[in-house]
Structures are given as structure tokens and as C-alpha cells.
């Protein structure tokens, strides 16, 4: 049973980390487990694409609890991919902090548990169980966000936990209402697939209420405006590899649950689910595009960009055509690989200059050529410069939107994306290429002329993470293309 193995691997890794065999052991176990899981999820995804699902998933007791289709396989692969690069990155990054063994053990144990909780979201078939594992992601990552125990990190973690759990409380009522609406429709199996089946018979009022409660409740955790306030804090205060996980895949895996509601709610005529998503999406893109201009902290810059990208995905889904659905799923993939790279680059810059303040970093390219060029590359990639991955998907979304005749929404989306491009690149450009005497931060931060070299594992992770960003911009491999198409197909009835 491959899915169970995938879920067990990080749990076993978390237990193995607790065995006191030194620093190398903890990071080694985590890296090996992540790579193993990447292979397993890859194999599972290939099976899904080829239509060869394990038999247990079709019948028997399993299908009640575990279900895998195109959408969930896609999310699983993304989580495993980012978990792998982030684990490799962690090796050098966390060593750099000269942490006590006990602290490092806490990090790796939590890291693996967090990966487990994320992998569980797309695997479970029952909505309330999905809600529980969404809660688990919050709880497993809370201590990672507060890991550095600074005042800011603790504040960020507290806000993260309180707002996420508040959202979860609202979503819980949504899921219970969803269950009630299924009972009112005459019952059935309470799984995502079962819900799609009985959806046309559900009382519209109940179904709509549950959809809104879930959209708002889980939207809090996805970071949709106006429930996003915790996200820039949490996604910037955590250690960089954790930021990569939080921003790259945690948001997407929560968004997965919201997307699962789509084929169910579409059974109700006039539910306006697409409109809700379009409005929330555009609001998130627009709001974050303007906020990007006034950010002082470069990790927050990328965190706000996550709010923007979640908005783009939601807008794409809201635009509604199957082409936009494909674009949305492509955007999910590209955002995950690109955003994780961005946080690796930001982490590299942080190691080199030891401050997160944009104004006090100038001429990074001279201090650390690797960090500087990675930051510029990441910035260009995440803002959608051609020919990198995000450009492809954003282009696909805008083209689909125009083909639909939704000129206003598509136009707004394009404008916001351009504003976000300038917002991010202005800051990064100054940091990387700016002259040392440029900017007010100069007197606070002495220009360090000595070259800084990154830990080897960070370099490896940066290169590995850059590969999909480059490749997906020009070429989508056939299996991935089919997987994305399958995922897009599950968004509609």
C-alpha cells in the first residue's frame, strides 16, 4: 500500500531523529527519508497518470479513508519535492547556527512531522479527516516558526497559531454542515468522491453555507486577503528552509482542500462559487501587489508574494474555463518550485549579510556572488519574467481569461502582476547591485568586503531547486502535462 508507506516514511524519520547518534545522523535521516518519499510519490504519480491505481484504492476498507487522483498525486509530488530540497538545504543552513544538539533534534523531528501532516492532506478521502490534518500542519509547524525564539519569531508563531486555528474553527462548522447536507440528501459515503456524487440532491442553502465557511476558514490559512495578516510574519520569521515549506507547499496543500469543494458546490445552480473565488483572488493579488512596494524585510517580500500567488491561483480557478483550470494547476506547480527557490536564495543572503533589512543590504553580488545571483534569479522567476516557469502559467491564465471574454478581471490581474514585478525587483535590484554608499542603511551596517561562501549543501539545494524553475519554463514533460490536465479536470464536475 504505497500511500500508507509514503505517510509512514516521515513519521519513522521523525522517530529515528530522536535516536541520539549525533548531528550528521539527524540531517542524514531527514534527507534520505525525503528522497525516498520523492521517489515513492513520483512512482505513485506515474501510476495515476497511466491509470494504474493500486487495487486497494478502488475497493475494500481503504477507499473510505484514503483516495488518490490526479489532483492529490500532483500535490503529493510537489510536497515531496520541496521537502527534499529543503532538507538538503537545512543540512548546511542549520549547521551554520551552531545550535545545541537538543535544539537541532527538535528542528528535524518537527520538520518530519510537518512534512507528514502536509502529505496527509491530499491523501485522506474524508473531509473531516482532511480538516484534522490541516490543523496538524498548523500545530506541527508552530514550533518551527517560533524556532529562533526571538521576540519577533514568537509573535509570528502566536499570530499564526491563533489565526489559523480561528479559521479552522469556522471551517469545522463548515465541514459539519457539509456532512449534514449529505445526510439531508439521503446519505452516502462521506468522502470527496462520495460528496460529488450526491451533491445535486443536497439542500442548496446548507451546501452554500458550508462552502463559504470552508472558503473563509481555510482561506485564512491559505493567506487570502483580508485574512492574510499572519502570513507575512510567519513565513518570514521561520528558518529559511521552513519558509520554503510553508510558502511553497503548505499554502498549496490547504488550497487543495478548498479546490476539492469546487465540483461539489458547482452542483448547485447559481451558487456563485467561481465569483467568490474570483473576488477573493483578485483582492489578494491587488492588495499584496501594493503592499510589496513598502516592505522593509526581504523575506517578507517573498511572503507577500505568496499571498499574491495564492490570489492568482484562485483568480484562475474563478475564471472558470478548463484552460484556466489547467493554468491554475500549472501555477500551483510553478509557484511551489519557484517560491521554495526564492526562500533558499533569501536564506543564502541572510547567511551572508545577517540582516533582513532591505535598506542595509547593498552590493550583495560582491559579498556573495552566489546569494546575489540566486536572489535576482529568484526574483525574476517568481514575478513571472520569461522564459521562466511562472511566466508560462501566468501567460496561460491570462490567455484563458481573455478567451473567456472576462476582460476586466483578466486586465486587473495583469496590471497587478506587473505592479508586483516592479515591487519585488526594485527592492532586490538595489540589494544585489546597489552601490555601498547608496541608501540610509550604510551607516548602520559596515560594508563587508570579504567574500562569503555558502555551505556546500545550500549550494546543492539551490542548484537542484533551480532546475525545475528553468526547465518548466520551456518544456513540460509529458507525464507532468497529463497529471496537470487530470488535476484540472477534477476541478469541474
Amino acid at each position, binding site marked *: 500500500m504505497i500511500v500508507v508507506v509514503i505517510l509512514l516514511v516521515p513519521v519513522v524519520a521523525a522517530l529515528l531523529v530522536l535516536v541520539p547518534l549525533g548531528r550528521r545522523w539527524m540531517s542524514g535521516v531527514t534527507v534520505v527519508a525525503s528522497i525516498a518519499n520523492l521517489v515513492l510519490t513520483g512512482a505513485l504519480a506515474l501510476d495515476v497518470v497511466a491509470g494504474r491505481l493500486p487495487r486497494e484504492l478502488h475497493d475494500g476498507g481503504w477507499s473510505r479513508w484514503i483516495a488518490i487522483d490526479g489532483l492529490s498525486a500532483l500535490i503529493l509530488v510537489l510536497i515531496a519535492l520541496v521537502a527534499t530540497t529543503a532538507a538538503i538545504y537545512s543540512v548546511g543552513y542549520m549547521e551554520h547556527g551552531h545550535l545545541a544538539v537538543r535544539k537541532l533534534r527538535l528542528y528535524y523531528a518537527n520538520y518530519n512531522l510537518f512534512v507528514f501532516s502536509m502529505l496527509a492532506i491530499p491523501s485522506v478521502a474524508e473531509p473531516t479527516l482532511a480538516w484534522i490534518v490541516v490543523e496538524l500542519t498548523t500545530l506541527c509547524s508552530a514550533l518551527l516558526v517560533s524556532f529562533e525564539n526571538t*521576540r519577533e519569531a514568537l509573535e509570528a*508563531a*502566536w499570530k499564526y497559531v491563533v489565526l489559523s486555528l480561528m479559521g479552522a*474553527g*469556522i471551517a469545522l462548522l463548515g465541514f459539519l454542515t457539509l456532512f449534514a447536507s449529505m445526510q439531508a440528501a439521503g446519505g452516502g459515503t462521506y468522502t470527496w468522491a462520495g460528496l460529488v456524487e450526491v451533491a445535486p440532491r443536497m439542500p442548496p442553502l*446548507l451546501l452554500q453555507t458550508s462552502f463559504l465557511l470552508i472558503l473563509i476558514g481555510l482561506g485564512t490559512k491559505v493567506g487570502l486577503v483580508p485574512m492574510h495578516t499572519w502570513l507575512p510574519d510567519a513565513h518570514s520569521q521561520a528558518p529559511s528552509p521552513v519558509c520554503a515549506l510553508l510558502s511553497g507547499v503548505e499554502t498549496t496543500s490547504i488550497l487543495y482542500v478548498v479546490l476539492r469543494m469546487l465540483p461539489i458546490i458547482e452542483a448547485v445552480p447559481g451558487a456563485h462559487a467561481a465569483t467568490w473565488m474570483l473576488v477573493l483572488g483578485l483582492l489578494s493579488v491587488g492588495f499584496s501587489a501594493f503592499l510589496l512596494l513598502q516592505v522593509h*524585510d526581504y523575506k517578507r517580500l517573498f511572503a507577500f508574494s505568496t499571498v499574491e500567488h495564492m490570489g492568482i491561483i484562485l483568480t484562475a480557478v474563478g475564471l472558470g474555463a478548463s484552460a484556466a483550470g489547467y493554468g491554475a494547476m500549472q501555477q500551483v506547480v510553478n509557484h511551489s518550485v519557484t517560491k521554495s527557490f526564492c526562500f533558499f536564495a533569501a536564506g543564502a543572503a541572510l547567511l551572508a549579510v545577517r540582516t533582513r533589512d532591505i535598506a542595509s543590504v547593498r552590493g550583495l553580488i560582491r559579498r556573495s556572488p552566489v546569494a546575489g545571483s540566486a536572489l535576482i534569479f529568484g526574483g525574476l522567476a517568481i514575478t513571472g519574467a520569461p522564459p521562466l516557469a511562472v511566466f508560462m502559467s501566468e501567460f496561460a491564465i491570462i490567455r484563458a481569461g481573455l478567451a473567456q471574454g472576462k476582460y476586466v478581471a483578466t486586465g486587473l490581474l495583469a496590471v497587478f502582476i506587473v505592479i508586483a514585478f516592479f515591487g519585488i525587483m526594485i527592492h532586490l535590484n538595489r540589494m544585489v547591485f546597489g552601490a555601498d554608499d547608496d541608501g540610509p542603511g550604510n551607516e548602520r551596517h559596515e560594508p563587508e568586503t570579504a567574500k562569503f561562501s555558502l555551505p556546500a549543501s545550500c549550494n546543492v539545494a539551490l542548484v537542484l531547486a533551480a532546475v525545475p524553475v528553468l526547465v518548466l519554463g520551456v518544456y513540460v514533460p509529458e507525464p507532468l502535462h497529463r497529471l496537470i490536465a487530470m488535476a484540472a479536470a477534477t476541478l469541474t464536475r
Partner: protein
Amino acid sequence: MSDGAAQLLDSLDALACGLFLLTSFGIVATRQARGCLQLFIAQSLLLAASAALLGLRFHAAHLYGVALVNLVTKPIIVPWLLRKTSPAGIYTRREVEQVLNIPVTLTISLALAIFAYFVGIPLARAAGPQFVGPNVPIGVAGLLLGALTLTVRREALPLLVGLLAMENGAFLAGISIARDLGMLVELAIATDGLVIVFIMGVLVRAVQQHVGTTAVGELASLRESGGQSGDAEVTT
């Protein structure tokens, strides 16, 4: 079941729900941190009572399970976990300054409760004729009042209680409309509540150690305009 017995159970359930609503108001308005926790425990007991009564009324055996889980986890394990994880100081704290003063908060609470009534009744009606009772509107009210607690409080313990009260509210509505959810799921949700308490307890302890306060709501250095956050040194 005879009509008289059913009616009696219905009225008892209504009584439990009414008292539940009162405890929700109490949680919003009580200044004493310990009092907040005690009100929460009372609220959980009422939730358990309502679950047991509904179980009896509709012969839903699994609602007894819900009642039992609530009886064990919230009045016993939650305070125990809090004692284990968080600093003792959080109990004795008394909030002098809330974001809003108590009369204003209570007025807002009242408005929320009325709003919940108008939202909850149609919801319960849509679920089917057998669901019309006070559980759904009062559950929604509990959820909203829990959220209000989260917005007006600053001290760690009342905030935690607010979160758990939101969950209680969702459950109070849930046990009436989603009766056959399944024991495994209920158990998982209960465990989840305990993990919440554990993690938040650990966080509060860390905040007290490193920042020296348990008024976690007052931490507000991370914003765009201040530019303070960028100066923070990290990892190394």
C-alpha cells in the same frame, strides 16, 4: 419513546444550550484568567450534557461517545496539560485593559447572538425537520463569541479558551445536525484539541521566557510601516 419523555429531553437539551450560551457570554467578559478557564470547563460539561441528551432522544449511541470524550478531555486533561506546559502565572493574571471595555463587548456579543439566531434557524431547517432545536443557532453563537474573545483579549489563557470555545460552539451545532459522523473522527478531533493546548502552552512558556510577558496579544512589532522587523538578527 413516549411523547412526554421526548418533550422532557427536548426541554432539558434547550436548558443545556441556554446555559451554554451564558457561559459563552461569561468567557467574553470575565477579566480573571482562572474564571475564564472555569467557565470553559462548565461550557464543555454542558456540551457533553447536550450530546448525551440528544443521544438519548434520537437513539444515537455514538453521541454518548462524544459526551464521554468531552467529559474526559476538557475538564480533566486540558487543565492538567496547561499546568504541565505553561507558566503558572497565566492563571493569576487579571486583565485590566481590554481592547474594548466590557459593556461595549457585551453589547457586541448580544448583537452576534441575535445574528447567530437568524443564521442558525434557517440552516437547521434546511437540514431537515427533525433538527429544529436550539443547538444550531446557539452553536453558531458560541463560535462567533469565541471569535470575539480572540479579538478583544490580550492575555494568553483567555485567548486559548476563546479558541477552544469556538470549537465547542461548532460542536454544539454539529452534534445536532451531523449526528453520525463516526467515532474515529470524533476521537481525532478531541485529540486535536489537546494538541492545540499543548502547543499553545509551550508557546506561552517560550514567550514568557524570552519576552517576559504572558499578554501575548500585546506583541506587535511585526508590521510594514515600522520597519523594525528588518533589524532583527537571526540564526547566527
